[in-house]
């Protein structure tokens, strides 16, 4: 029996978040906390970045480019490109959640992450708009809290753990991104990823400042063209 009201939705959201979603967050955000420490962010800014950016890949872009002393504008564009997916995700999620005011909708959009979006879009999620609002709120608030704590733990771990362990925390970021990209579906995404990894090596070597932006445009366009060809073949 699926919950019908807001409070039932919140409870269902909290239950869904406990387990795999929070475990993955603990592992990945611990790595990010270590990276934030390695790249020279303060502990407070590291935790704030998790809550306010709330999209791990974009956060890693920010920390990595900050460490490379990139220009603020170049960092903002690259982070924005890494997080462009929030636009289509919000477009598809928002109409399914109950809510009248703009402030409430913006709050839900800020709480939204790739994980909360995926869980709210699953067939097992509640169906009525109020229960869905509760589900997304409960799920995302718990995730954000766990993620903020994990960031702090990773930050302190990088500062205090023996060198090999601190380095391993840093390595989590690369490992997490690698598996995330392996898990993408479709030929267009595969080509975008392969082009990005291969072309990314020379591009980022010669353009440490704007390399990620150029890589995104090149790889994204290759993926788009390959996907377009696939769509014509199917139709």
């Amino acid at each position: 029996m699926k919950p019908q009201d807001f409070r039932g939705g919140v409870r269902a959201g909290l239950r869904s978040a406990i387990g795999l979603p929070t475990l993955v967050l603990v592992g990945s955000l611990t790595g990010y906390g270590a990276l934030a420490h390695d790249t020279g962010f303060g502990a407070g800014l590291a935790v704030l970045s998790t809550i306010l950016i709330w999209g791990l890949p974009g956060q890693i872009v920010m920390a990595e480019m900050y460490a490379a002393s990139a220009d603020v504008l170049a960092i903002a564009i690259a982070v924005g490109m890494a997080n462009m997916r929030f636009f289509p995700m919000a477009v598809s999620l928002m109409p399914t959640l109950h809510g009248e005011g703009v402030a409430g909708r913006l709050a839900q959009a800020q709480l939204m992450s790739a994980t909360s979006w995926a869980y709210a879009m699953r067939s097992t999620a509640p169906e009525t708009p109020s229960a869905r609002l509760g589900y997304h709120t409960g799920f995302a608030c718990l995730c954000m809290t766990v993620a903020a704590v994990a960031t702090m733990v990773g930050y302190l771990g990088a500062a205090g753990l023996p060198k090999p362990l601190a380095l391993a925390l840093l390595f989590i970021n690369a490992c997490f991104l690698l598996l995330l990209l392996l898990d993408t579906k479709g030929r267009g995404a595969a080509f975008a990823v392969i082009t990005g990894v291969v072309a990314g090596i020379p591009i980022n070597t010669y353009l440490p400042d704007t390399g990620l932006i150029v890589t995104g445009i090149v790889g994204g366009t290759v993926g788009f063209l390959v996907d377009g060809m696939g769509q014509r073949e199917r139709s």
Partner: protein
Amino acid sequence: MTAFAPAAAALVLAASVAATFLWRALGVFLARRLDPKGAVFRWFSFASFAVLAGLLSRLLILPTGDLATIGIEVRLGAAAIGVAAFYLSRRNLLVGVASGTLSFALAAGAMN
């Protein structure tokens, strides 16, 4: 490793937060008026993937921070172990990341 004042880090964070929030807000205001599967969104999604792929190259092959003190063969080897564990565990992200990271810790520990 960086000599930036905290103010610069705060500015970088503020700019990154704004760049991210822009997309979320656009989604709120343009919901119901756009097709999430349209051509522009497909390009967005591929470009996002490509940015992350470029980021992976930077982290794994061209690291700048402390990771650069560990050889590329260890980084790629540990990543390969993570990928193998990921597929052996039927695409379990947690098992894959844990295996890759643990292998990396062991190799880094053995070298120090």
